[in-house]
């Protein structure tokens, strides 16, 4: 088994299902989708008005959606998060609504949308003493941030790292994903043979990681361990994945190697599973490449919460840890007709698994791939 140094001792998140990990898990297991209609901005010119929106989330002038998501989560958590935790923020667009407001109304300061300012606010909100680090690697931002955090702990540089991730559904990203024709007109159907694209979603969350020694010393509950990771690039295309899955397969192989586990140890895969034709096909090819013809149960949560961009990896790590606690594979929400290529990998119903090691994968714009082994 892997020689683990970094453990997860606390986590929380808000997703389109609402506040909390258990709520999200309960809905995923039930196969519910939180994808609904957008009322935040005018969508009549777009192919779809669907997204995974956090219920009741709104913000006024001078506020941002992501801070509105993060603030309630930090309430009463200062005691839980040590002051000497190194903070890492993962996001793709952060407080982009400041830039939107400036261009649409001419009011406000667009420079406030720089995620560097968001990092400063998060440092204040959480009460940590380090200025921290912003990590942005498209839709692999969270996995990259968690890997980096684990590396900081493994190296002994810090013994407590706080990774925070957030992204909101904005007119900015919605119009952009529409422009590149990546959106399904209905809710995303990852790994379905009739899938047509992704559905955007929004989420925010955090995980607090510690060295095993510190977690033990402080009698922290261990929710799971970061056993290893692999980060690669396809070096192929800006918006399309490497069709043979070579880049993602390389990331998974690196992650397995760094965790000192083999394919036989993996009980379940948390897939990126966006619902786009090319991503899902690429992922299944990568899984087949790595696991040879040995089926490993896989699932995607994006039919439930949508693609939460920079936050996706963190939400998926938290759900992967929950799936390890429950030893249950959640169903792939919205899966009706399994793509023949994904047959035997993904399921419509929850199922039990026996091997207590999981791998969570993400891929993003620019051909960036990431895989994290959790146990």
């Amino acid at each position, binding site marked *: 088994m892997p020689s683990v140094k970094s453990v997860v001792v606390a986590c929380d998140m808000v997703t389109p299902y609402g506040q909390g990990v258990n709520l999200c898990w309960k809905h995923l297991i039930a196969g519910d989708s939180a994808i609904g209609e957008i009322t935040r901005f005018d969508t009549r010119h777009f192919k779809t008005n669907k997204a995974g929106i956090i219920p009741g989330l709104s913000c006024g002038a001078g506020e941002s959606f992501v801070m509105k998501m993060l603030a309630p989560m930090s309430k009463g958590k200062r005691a839980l998060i040590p002051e000497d935790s190194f903070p890492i923020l993962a996001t793709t667009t952060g407080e982009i609504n400041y830039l939107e407001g400036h261009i649409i109304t001419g009011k406000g300061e667009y420079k406030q*949308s720089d*995620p560097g300012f968001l990092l400063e606010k998060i440092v204040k909100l959480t009460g940590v003493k380090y200025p921290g*680090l912003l990590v942005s690697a498209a839709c692999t931002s969270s996995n990259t941030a968690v890997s980096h955090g684990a590396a900081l702990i493994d190296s002994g540089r810090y013994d407590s790292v706080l990774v925070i991730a957030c992204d909101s559904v904005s*007119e900015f990203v919605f119009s952009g994903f529409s*422009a590149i024709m990546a959106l399904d007109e209905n809710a995303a159907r990852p790994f379905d043979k009739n899938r047509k694209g992704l559905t955007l979603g929004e989420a925010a969350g955090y995980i607090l990681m510690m060295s095993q020694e510190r977690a033990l010393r402080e009698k922290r509950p261990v929710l799971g361990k970061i056993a290893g990771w692999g*980060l690669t690039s396809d070096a192929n295309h*800006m918006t399309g994945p490497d069709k043979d899955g070579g880049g993602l397969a390389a990331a998974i192989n690196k992650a397995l190697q760094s965790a000192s586990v083999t394919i036989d140890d993996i009980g379940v895969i948390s897939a990126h599973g966006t619902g786009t034709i090319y991503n899902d096909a690429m992922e299944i090819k990568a899984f087949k490449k790595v696991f040879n013809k040995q089926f490993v149960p896989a699932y995607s949560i994006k039919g439930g919460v949508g693609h939460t961009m920079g936050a996706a990896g963190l939400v998926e790590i938290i759900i992967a840890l929950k799936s390890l606690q429950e030893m249950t594979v959640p169903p792939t929400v919205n899966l009706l007709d399994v793509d023949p290529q994904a047959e035997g990998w993904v399921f419509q119903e929850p199922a039990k698994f026996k091997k207590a090691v999981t791998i969570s994968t993400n891929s993003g714009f*620019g051909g960036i791939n990431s895989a994290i082994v959790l146990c």
Partner: protein
Amino acid sequence: MIKITGIGWITEKRYGRIIQQSARDYSDLKSLASDFVGQALFAYPVKNFGRFDKISKMVCAAAALTFNDAGVRYFKSEKKETGIIGTGTAGCLQSNLAYFKDYVDNGRSLGRGNLFIYTLPSTPLAEVAIHFGCRGPLLYIKSGQSRMLSLIEYAGDMISRNEASSMLAISADEHRVICILLETDDQVHQKKGFRIEEQSLTAMIASLEKGIS
């Protein structure tokens, strides 16, 4: 041991290489691709270079200068296990403005995909990965500490952890890009360069950042 084997830089009017100690003026970004081809800095044309945003053009040019400075050859048909880590004060703020302003000016009905793809701070780095075939980790970071030194430290750590065999560390601002190649010393011990453990590195980086403006 990890060594800096190449440093390339570019401003809006001039570009150069530190190890090879060369610098020259150039006319404008539009002509950069052909200008470089003439100088044999890009081994082959950069696909869609004309459509890149300004920062991506400069970052790609700085990477070409860096590989050239380090004597590293690259081929269209061959990929390398080099990773890329980048930083910059403004991230992709200008590209975000360009995309959303264009979208609003066009009646908020349709965005331009080609502008949208540059609205991630990692996009210029991905353009480098695609052109030079760099298959290692790719990430944009921003920290409150000394930027170039932090980048070098993070890049060195990634090599030490075997996450990549070599790393490009790129500091990109609107008016200046500095790119550094880090390789393991056992692979390149005969090459000129600086060991990242050297005491003089801090002074060298400070002088580099001050000297290129």
